[in-house]
C-alpha cells in the first residue's frame, strides 16, 4: 500500500498537470523570471557596492554625503 502524499504536494502536482488556459501564463512567468534574473540582473544590474564590507560601504557613502556644493552655494540674505 502506497504512502499517502502530502496535500499541498498533490494540490500543486495535479493542478499543474491539469492546467489548460493557465499553461501559457506559467510560460510567461518563467520567461520573465529568466529575463529578469539570468539576463538583466547578471549583465545590466550589478549592485554598485557589491563586494564591499559594511565598513567600506559606510566609508563610500559617507564620503559622497560630505561632498557638498560649497563653492556654488548661494544663500539668500
Amino acid at each position, binding site marked *: 500500500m502506497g504512502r499517502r502524499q502530502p496535500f499541498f504536494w498533490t494540490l500543486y502536482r495535479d493542478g499543474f498537470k491539469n492546467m489548460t488556459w493557465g499553461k501559457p501564463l506559467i510560460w510567461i512567468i518563467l520567461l520573465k523570471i529568466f529575463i529578469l534574473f539570468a539576463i538583466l540582473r547578471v549583465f545590466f544590474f550589478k549592485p554598485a557596492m557589491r563586494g564591499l564590507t559594511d565598513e567600506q560601504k*559606510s566609508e563610500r557613502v559617507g564620503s559622497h554625503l560630505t561632498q557638498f*556644493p560649497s563653492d556654488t552655494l548661494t544663500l539668500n540674505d
Partner: protein
Amino acid sequence: MDVVTWSRIQFAMTAAYHWLFVPLTLGLALVMAVMETLYVVKKDEFWKKTAQFWMKLFAINFAVGIATGIILEFEFGTNWSNYSWFVGDMFGAPLAIEGILAFFLEATFFAVMFFGWNKVSKRFHLASTWLTGIGATISAFWILVANGWMQNPVGTTFNPDTVRSEMASAAAFWEVVSNPVAVSKFFHSVTSGWVTGGVFVVGVSAWYLLKGREKKFATKSMLIGGLVGLVGSAAVMLSGDASGIHAAEFQPMKLAAAEGLEDGGKGAAFTIVPGIKVPHMLSLLATHDWNGYVPGINDILNGYTDNEGNVIPSVADKMAMGRTALDALATYRANKDTNPELAAQAREVLDANVQYMGYGHLEKPEDVIPPVGVVFWAFRFMVGLGMLLALVLLLSVWFAWKGKLENYRWLLWTALWCIPLVYICGQSGWIVAEVGRQPWTIQGLLPVNVAISSLSAGTVKTTFFVFLAVFALFLVIEIRIMLRAIRKGPEVEPEKL
C-alpha cells in the same frame, strides 16, 4: 540628460509599469471574493462561474505583473546605491516582512484558489480566495510603510558611524509602522485599487451588454463590481482628505506645487482650473479650518509661521543648517578614532542640525521647488477623473439594479472607456506623490543627486531602453491574452486553471 535624470526616468517607468498590475490585483481580488461569498451563501452555481471568470482575468494580470516590483530593487542596488545604503536598516524589516508574507500567503492560497475547487471544502476555498486578496493587501501595506517613511522619515535616527538611518528600538519600529503618511497612503492606494477593480469589471461587463452577450452575467457583475468601486471611491475620498492634511503638515511644498500656489495665506482659495477658484476651500482641505494658513511656494522659500505658531525657517536658513550638519559629519568621521573630544563636539552639532542635513546638498533655495506644472495638472487629472469614475460607477449600479442598463448605451460606452481612464487616474496620483516631493528621495535628508550611484548616464540609458522593450513586449502579451479571455467569455471551464 544627466545620470540622475535618466535614473529617475527609469525608476518612474518601472514603478508606473508595476502600478498597472497592482491595483487590478487588489480590486479584482475583492470582487471575486465577494462573488464567491455569494456562491457559498446562496449555493448558486451562477456565482461560482461568475467568480471563476473574474479569477481567470485576475490570474492573467497576476502572471504578467508578477516580479515587476523586483526590478525596482535591482535599480535600488545599481542606480541608487547611496540611497540603498542610507535606508538599508530601515527598509530591511518592512521589505522582509512583505517578501515573506507575499510568498507564503499569496503562493499558498493562490494555489488553493485555482487548483483546489474540487479538493477542499467550499468554505476553505472561500477562505483561500479572501486570503489571497488579504495577502496582496498586507504586502502593499509594508511597501507603503517604506514609501511613507521616505515622505515623512519618522522613527529613525541618523547614525554617523554607519551613515544610515536606523531604527533603535521596537518603539521606533512602531513609529515607522504607524507613520500617519504611511497609513493614509496605504488606505488611499489600496482603495484606489478597489476603484480600479470595480471600473474594470463594470467596463468589461458593459462590453458584453453592448455586444448583447452574457446579459445576466454582465448585469450581476456590474452590480458587484460597481458596488466595490463605489465603496473604494468613498474610501479614496476620505483617505485623500487625510493625505491632503498630511501633505500640508509634512510636505507643504508638495501641496503648494499641486495648487500652483505662489503666495499663500489664511483662507486660501482652491484652484479648480486656472481662473476658477473656490474661496477658502484650500484652507479647509489642508487644515480643516476655513481660515487656516496655507503657505505658498514663496512663503516656504522665505520662511513662515504655521498654524500651531511654529516658526519654519527659510530654505536658505535650512541650507545653512544643512551645511553645518554636513561639516559636522565630516569632522566627526575624520576624528572619531584620533580625537574623540572633537568628534563628540562634532556629533552634538550634527545631532542639532541633522533634520536639515539634506538641504546642505542644495545649490540654491529654488532647488526645493518640484516641477509645478506637472504636479498641478496631475492633481487635477487625478481628482477630476476620480469624480467622473465615481459618477459612472454610481449610474452603472443604479441602472444595473433597476435592470435598465441596455437602455443606456451611452453609459455602457462611457463605462468601457473608463477602463483606460482609471489607469490614468491612478498614475496621476503617483505623479503627484512622487514628482511632488522632488528633489527628495528622503524628505529633508537625502536629495536625488546624492542618492545616486557613481554611474554614467549611458549605462542607465541602455538599461532604460532594454526595460522599455521588455515591458512593452509583456504588456502587449498581457493585453492580448486578456482580450482573448474576455472575448471567449464566461462559458468557463470550471475546475481547471
